């Protein structure tokens, strides 16, 4: 055996080392990532309450989903988070990054102020925002509104205001990340592009639309995709601000909370798996759009 081992070429020995290094990780990825993925797809075609066996029902879960008004309600909410969250956060973070990029005095401090919310525990900050949203005399927002002579707002207690009220801290926590990425993108634009534009006599707006934004395209695509995915998966803030209910009257309930309820309150694991497949399909579609946008340049 020893003689055999010394006969191996260097390349073969290296390959043995390589597979040795990879053995445990491969087992992990197969057992904890790939197998569960397949199981989720399989479960989506079954009736399964976790205790019993999976019982195949074909496409029944998908048919039920299509006719479930509660499902369409959460899909509507989820896309409301996306439709409000992505444009607002992109616009705000770009404007801040655009000006922050030109500031040298106190740059690090300013950037830190904007970035810190990104590192916080959502559940902890959800409490702070809940406190702000309370009716007077507890909640700061309502106290300020009253002192300005404006009407009080119900915020989390209203079916129309609750969703934006839950979204606000999510945006607040997310823009720090977007600003840092925008700043990195802005720094990567070569100075001479700006100099050339200046020589051409282009004004600030023309430089912005004809130089800065086109060159930032990969950054913008990356951020639109990552933030879209984040808002489609929103869960922590909603759970923590509505006591896990997604209320009032499901007004704030996103898809992930519905999945959580279906699986762990009603123990309809098969039906919940079907909902995760829908989530997966939506996220996959967005990632494919990203690839397409980045390639077609």
């Amino acid at each position, binding site marked *: 055996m020893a003689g055999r081992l010394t006969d191996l070429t260097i390349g073969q020995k*290296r390959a043995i080392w390589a597979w040795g290094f990879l053995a445990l990780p491969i087992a992990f990825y197969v057992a904890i990532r790939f197998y569960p993925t397949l199981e989720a797809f399989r479960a989506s075609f079954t009736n399964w309450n976790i205790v019993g066996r999976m019982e195949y029902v074909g496409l029944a879960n998908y048919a039920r989903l299509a006719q479930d008004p509660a499902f369409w309600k959460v899909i509507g909410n989820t896309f409301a988070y996306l439709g409000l969250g992505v444009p607002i956060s992109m616009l705000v973070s770009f404007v801040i990054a655009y000006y922050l990029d030109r500031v040298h005095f106190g740059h690090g401090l300013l950037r830190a102020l904007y970035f810190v919310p990104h590192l916080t525990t959502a559940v902890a900050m959800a409490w702070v925002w809940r406190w702000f949203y309370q009716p007077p005399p507890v909640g700061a927002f309502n106290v300020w509104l009253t002192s300005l002579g404006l009407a009080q707002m119900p915020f989390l207690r209203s079916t129309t205001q609750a969703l934006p009220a839950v979204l606000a801290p999510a945006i607040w926590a997310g823009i720090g990340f977007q600003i840092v990425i925008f700043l990195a993108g802005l720094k990567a634009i070569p100075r001479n592009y700006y100099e050339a534009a200046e020589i051409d006599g282009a004004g600030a707006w023309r430089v912005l639309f004809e130089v800065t934004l086109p060159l930032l395209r990969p950054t913008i695509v990356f951020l639109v995709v990552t933030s879209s995915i984040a808002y489609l998966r929103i869960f922590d803030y909603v759970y923590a601000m509505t006591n896990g209910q997604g209320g009032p009257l499901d007004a704030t309930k996103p898809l992930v909370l519905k999945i959580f309820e279906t699986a762990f309150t009603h123990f309809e694991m098969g039906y919940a798996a079907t909902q995760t497949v829908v989530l997966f399909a939506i996220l996959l579609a967005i990632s494919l759009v990203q690839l397409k946008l980045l390639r077609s340049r």
Partner: protein
Amino acid sequence: MTRTSPGRVVAWTLLLLGGIVMVMPFAYMLSGSFKLNSEIYELSLLPREPTLDNYRRLFEKSEFVRWFGNSLLIGTLTTASVLFFDSLVGYTLAKFRFRGRYVVFVAILTTLMIPTEMLVLPWYAMARNFHWLDTYWGIAFPGLMTGFGTFLMKQFFEDVPDELLDAARLDGLNEFQVWWQVAMPLVVPALSALAIFTFLGNWTAFLWPLIAITDRNLYTLPVGLATFSGEYQTEWEMVMTGAAVATIPTILVFLLLQRYIIRGISMAGLKA
């Protein structure tokens, strides 16, 4: 570049005001945590009679201290595992030439496309079968290796010159020693960035611990905090104290390692 025009001063002032608005929730959280219950309804940021009573009360509850410890333990173990395995796999994929290398790399990359929400149901079934529910291992096992970290580390190991590794081999080091003693010290900046992200990610993780744990003694900090509603109904100063204890460590980490964090995020964003 350093001209000071009125427009710049206005822009700078607005940026500073915006930044102050951004940290207002922290200011109110901290000030609330030092206030007496009788003072909590006043909106002033400076407590009239600052008190540490809330912190004392919170830490006297052994539960809360346990939650803090649980989060610390799980964050540390997971981060150690991720640093070890993600860099080992990243190194192997970057520096070894063997058949099947590309397949392994692509397979690990595809796991980035699978949302956690899809995996938690099978993980729960698995953990239930193996009696991992309500154990530390049960909280930690899904995060012991990450596709993101592997990808990040692979990018950085590609820049390590092969000559250096070959020289170490001539010195008689085996492949494991070459990785651990020669290559690893060269990617410390990337390792620190990965360590920070992983630890913070686990410190704030909510969905899976919420599912995997029903025993209050094993709650992580976020899961424990989420149950505060029942306990401290109108004691907002206690809720703020709990929130502060969960948040202050991450802010301290940020202040200490700001440079690495910002650089790490920029790197990750540009390389992705």
